[in-house]
């Protein structure tokens, strides 16, 4: 793979074929055996909570700077309302930064892309909550964007955040830290993940209902963002094609795992809310029941860690990504409760 500053011999940048691995998932009737667990770097000493909350503060600061209020005020307020919402865990940007640092990248190189991921994530959530979509009047315990600002403004806020994310990457990524070829790959990756065969497809299939499998919908709706976040971090740091594919499978597994566990946690809440979600969206709990959803979660945990096992040469730099997997499954602490 050879790049020149002027592309002449190759008709286009080389983008390794992104196969879309169907996460092999067996709905087993017995618990997974742990006898084949490889020797892994211990994560028990790693303080994920401090690592994560520190990053959240940095990312919040940069997001605040990226969307200053100016004329016309309402659109900026609507964008900030969702992007800077309290309770946001910043999972996509944190995963991006961690993946970048894993391969020796500087987090300063990753921050603009990390912010862009959060903008795009917020945009998709704003649109998902609209009355014509999931029709959610609230998000994270607060009024949804369209409840606060009206449907038209919410649509425009989402519309503004997508290009703002791309622009932020181009205008803020330090060129001395990230070669231009990598930036272009990051933009292509985000565009693909969010687009008509990615998250948009997942949301559409979720709303359409019908025979679409829960596996496929969950991979598209939630796996894509995890995959994209991890891959972008790797691209920024110059990871190899094989390493990128590992990140792709890792990120996808963690993204879906996170949602499966969310669904299980919601089972414990108000029955009325559960019935509403069961009727509207596809979840493993709704499709298979809690016990089998737990097996799926453990399977995804194992898959995600297996991908990281192939990156053992990076030593302790891989620990944050391991820790995310356990956090997604176990939720050992709270994050995203920081004041803005």
């Amino acid at each position, binding site marked *: 793979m050879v790049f020149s500053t*002027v592309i002449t011999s190759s008709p286009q940048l080389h983008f390794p074929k992104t196969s879309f691995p169907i996460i092999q998932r067996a709905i087993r009737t017995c618990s997974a055996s742990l006898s084949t667990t490889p020797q892994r770097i211990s994560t028990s000493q790693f303080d994920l909570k401090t690592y994560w909350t520190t990053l959240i503060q940095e990312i919040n600061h940069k997001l605040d700077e990226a969307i200053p209020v100016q004329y*016309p005020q309402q*659109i900026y307020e609507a964008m900030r309302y969702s992007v800077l919402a309290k309770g946001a865990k910043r999972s996509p940007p944190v995963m991006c930064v961690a993946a970048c640092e894993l391969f020796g990248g500087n987090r300063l190189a990753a921050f603009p892309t990390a912010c862009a991921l959060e903008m795009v994530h917020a945009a998709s959530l704003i649109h998902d909550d609209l009355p*014509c979509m999931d029709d959610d009047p609230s998000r994270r315990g607060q009024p949804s964007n369209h409840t606060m600002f009206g449907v038209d403004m919410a*649509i425009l806020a989402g*519309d503004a955040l997508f*290009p*703002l994310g791309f622009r932020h990457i181009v205008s803020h990524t330090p060129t001395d830290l990230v070669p231009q070829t990598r930036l272009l790959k990051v933009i292509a990756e985000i565009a693909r993940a969010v*687009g*008509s065969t990615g998250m948009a497809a997942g949301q559409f299939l979720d709303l359409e209902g019908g025979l679409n499998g829960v596996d496929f919908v969950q991979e598209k709706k939630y796996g894509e963002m995890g995959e994209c976040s991890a891959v972008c971090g790797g691209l920024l740091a110059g990871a190899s094609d094989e390493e990128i594919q590992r990140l792709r499978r890792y990120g996808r597994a963690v993204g879906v795992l996170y949602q499966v566990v969310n669904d299980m946690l919601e089972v414990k809440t108000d029955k009325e809310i559960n019935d509403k979600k069961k009727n509207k969206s596809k979840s493993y709990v709704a499709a298979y029941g809690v016990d089998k959803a737990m097996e799926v979660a453990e399977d995804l945990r194992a898959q995600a860690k297996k991908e990281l096992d192939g990156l053992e040469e990076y030593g302790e730099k891989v620990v944050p990504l391991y820790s995310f997997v356990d956090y997604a499954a176990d939720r050992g602490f709270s994050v995203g409760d920081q004041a803005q």
Partner: protein
Amino acid sequence: MLQKINAVNKVLDAVVPLRNPTKIHEAMRYSFLSGGKRICSIVCIAFVDGNESIAMPSACALEMVHAACLMHDYLSCTDSDDLRRWKPSNHKVFGEYVIVLAGCALVTCAFEHIVTTIVGVKLEKILRVIGELARLIGLEGVVVGQVDDLESGGQDQSDMGFEKLEYIHFHKTTAALEASAIAGAMLEKKSVAITCMT
């Protein structure tokens, strides 16, 4: 000019093929394959000295984002237009939620198209085109024009004041042409002093 329009249409037809999920892609294609003067793409190509091969990815991307902006513009909660070019508006044919998703998908497809297909252009210029396109379809262009239009409510244009009216039209409409010209000028091999159109 007709030749250029046909060339643009041919590429657009190939860039967004019908694939799964079919309905989203049908909605995307319905917008930009249902006629159109292709002013954005023609302007872009013209600014690259008519060099189609260099300009085409950006020209098509401009048509895609223009179509996306119009799709959301015609939604019932914004400008509420049920007809476009005497045909049912996209949201009337496919439903609002499909249009919300398809519009965003068209925008991201446009950026992906530029990055993955542009040929014979320095990487720095490609990034500049991306940045300019993002700027002018977002918070310095179409979106803020639409916001101001919305906030004017049902106000008659004659009551609006010239400055307000100019702001709306400049950002809603002219920004797209500005993006087309700037993208073309940036791609042009010669250094060109680019100033904003007013």
